[in-house]
């Protein structure tokens, strides 16, 4: 018993030692700039000691917790059973979920009032739904066709810039631009698809990443077209199929005999993105049952077998890229009509990474998993914005937005370690002989991969 305690102490001491090594220069000293002296160092030893002490205590606690849990686990061996949801239950959950999503903005308005609900509908509702739609779009490329795309945000950018330019330069209305933006993005998708047809896995990942960066760099530097870093502002706002959401006689409120409220536009945007997202879902679900969708799934599992069976892998890959891009383009057009402003900074690699992590955390291939993951990641990171409140306690120098991304990064690592196969790890083939055989991810989970 004594040696066990000593071991726990030793490992905690080691953890503290490592922490001191990690913290030594980068936390202990702050290289500050000064106009007169240039760079100078400012020491922060108390913070380092706090970190080391914290690591020591945490390590002790986790060791004790693990020992305690082990002693409990020895008594009862839990049986590991896979939880599956029946088709009927899934359908019921789907209807309930869609009903809840439909009711969400109205419930918000009635409980919180028009002013109080804006944040909830806009920052949470619309924001999450955009990412759900993007997640579902990327899911076609990554989850169904198995093509790892790290530059998905490029198509989102193409759609957003497409609407911004068409509406400000040519004055085209939103409803005409929406499908056009999707088509432009799809053309870009095919343009990306052609050179990468022969690439697989990580090579594909790096080329798509490079493509995403190229689009962003072009948007940043082609000032004549995109106005560069400053972005395009004063993009026309959304209309109710031609009727503007304005206060005047011909506005939406006057037309339908409603009192004018600014929230009406937001609620309409919410329903619009909900409809677009559901349409994406519908298309995906139908595509999975078409020969094309089955070709994608086959492509994901084994490209060589696919080719041997005479499946046109070129067409399958290009169509996956094109349809995925089309959806991102539509989402981009929606983004730009919602923001009224686009700039290259909205389309950095971090966005691609966020969308990809939603798809992967959602359990690549599962539609509901992606919704859950989007709520968790986007909702969570929006929620962290509320850390502003902490500024009152910690003073001006405390910048909560930096902690936000820091926690998002740590969260991604933690979630991957906690559930590497995603939240909903049901990736069953849509077509099977007699009974569905477990596919790749499940094989690996069972230790057979």
């Amino acid at each position: 018993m004594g040696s066990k305690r000593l071991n726990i102490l030793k490992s905690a001491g080691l953890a503290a030692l490592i922490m001191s090594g990690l913290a030594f220069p980068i936390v202990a000293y702050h290289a500050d700039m000064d106009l007169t002296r240039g760079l100078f160092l400012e020491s922060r030893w108390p913070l380092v000691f706090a970190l080391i002490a914290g690591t020591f205590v945490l390590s002790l606690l986790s060791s004790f917790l693990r020992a305690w849990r082990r002693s409990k686990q020895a008594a009862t061996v839990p049986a590991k059973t896979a939880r599956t949801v029946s088709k009927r239950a899934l359908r019921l959950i789907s209807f309930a979920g869609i009903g809840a999503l439909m009711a969400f903005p109205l419930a918000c308005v009635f409980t919180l009032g028009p002013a109080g609900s804006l944040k909830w509908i806009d920052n949470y509702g619309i924001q999450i739904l955009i990412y759900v739609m993007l997640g579902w779009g990327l899911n076609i490329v990554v989850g169904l066709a198995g093509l790892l795309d790290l530059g998905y945000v490029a198509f989102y950018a193409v759609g957003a810039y497409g609407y911004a330019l068409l509406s400000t330069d040519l004055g085209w209305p939103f409803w005409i631009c929406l499908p056009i933006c999707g088509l432009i993005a799809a053309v870009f998708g095919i343009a990306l698809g052609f050179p990468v047809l022969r690439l697989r896995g990580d090579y594909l990942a790096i080329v798509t990443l490079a493509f995403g960066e190229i689009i962003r760099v072009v948007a940043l530097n082609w000032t004549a077209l995109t106005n560069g870093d400053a972005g395009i502002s004063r993009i026309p706002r959304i209309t109710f199929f031609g009727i503007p959401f304005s206060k005047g006689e011909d506005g939406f409120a006057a037309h339908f005999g409603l009192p004018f409220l600014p929230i009406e536009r937001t609620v309409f945007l919410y329903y619009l993105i909900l409809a677009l997202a559901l349409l994406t879902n519908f298309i995906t679900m139908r595509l999975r049952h078409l020969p094309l969708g089955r070709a994608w799934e086959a492509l994901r599992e084994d490209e060589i077998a696919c080719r041997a069976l005479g499946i046109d892998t070129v067409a399958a890959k290009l169509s996956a890229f094109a349809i995925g891009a089309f959806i991102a383009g539509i989402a981009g057009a929606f983004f730009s009509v919602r923001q009224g402003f686009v700039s290259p900074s909205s389309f950095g690699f971090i966005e691609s990474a966020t969308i990809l992590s939603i798809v992967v955390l959602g359990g690549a291939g599962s539609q509901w998993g992606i919704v859950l993951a989007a709520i968790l990641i986007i909702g969570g990171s929006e929620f962290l914005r509320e850390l502003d409140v902490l500024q009152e306690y910690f003073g001006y120098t405390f910048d909560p937005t930096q902690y936000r991304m820091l926690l998002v990064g740590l969260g991604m690592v933690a979630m991957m370690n906690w559930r590497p196969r995603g939240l909903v790890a049901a990736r069953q083939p849509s077509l099977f002989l007699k009974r569905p055989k477990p596919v790749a991810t499940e094989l690996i989970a069972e230790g057979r991969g």
Partner: protein
Amino acid sequence: MEIFLQQLINGLTLGAIYGLIAIGYTMVFGVIGMVNFAHGDVFMLSTFIALIIFLLLTQLLGLDSISVDLIIVLAAAMAITGLWNFMIERIAYRRLRSSFRLAPLISSIGMSIFLSNFVALAQGPRNKAVPSVLDDVFKLTRGHGYDVTLSLKQILIVAAAVLLLYALWYVVEKTPLGRAQRACEQDQGMAALLGVDVDRTVSATFVIGAMLAAAAGVLYMLYYGVVNPNDGFIVGVKAFTAAVLGGIGSLPGAVLGGLLIGLVETFWAAYFSSDYKDVAAFSVLAITLIFLPRGLFGRAEVEKV
């Protein structure tokens, strides 16, 4: 001609830095088949560690001999960055090694976001100008209106890179550790059965990769004189591009890829437009991969159905 020569020198210097970082990508990929996305940010972290140690030595301890300072900075930055990457692998990747392929990639993207924000938080998000040292410049040609110059820093960078690459070659080819690494690269399961400690080999791979990235970080800090918490991403992507260009998994390929990317970038910036130099580097990658899908030195992967 003078401009060409000058850009050749500049490009090779930049390429040496990319090559050192690219080795970290290619080694990790070779041994565990994972794209370590956070590697660029590990490099960025090392530039800050190097900067702080340099300031500590010169300002607080008052060591005036620049060469002694630089050697200490290099050794300390390599050691501390190695420790960082060791812990990163332990925390973020080790448990995911047997998981499906995207899991460690996502985890490393998360790590990359964490690192750049951590450094921005600890050191402030803005550019930091490093006090300039070793400013000697040699003129190679004279009198043609444009003097080709070679700075002491450039010589130092290339010399340091060559020395480190020799050390790496020695470790990989001549030591038991290198043998274990090559064994893990070929077949991890078999290597484990034959008594190779896979966990330790993977850890060592991460530490070596981080040490080379840290060396690149020290050289980068010296050469450019500016460090920024957001530098990691673009430099990392270019180094990864270099690794892929050379054939991921191949050490000489990574160095050659780094040199090529460095040259393409500097020549493009010199002759065309510096706004689009990143586009040029990525386009070279795309074109190479279309014609040589496995990179320059990549092995063809035999696939079994």
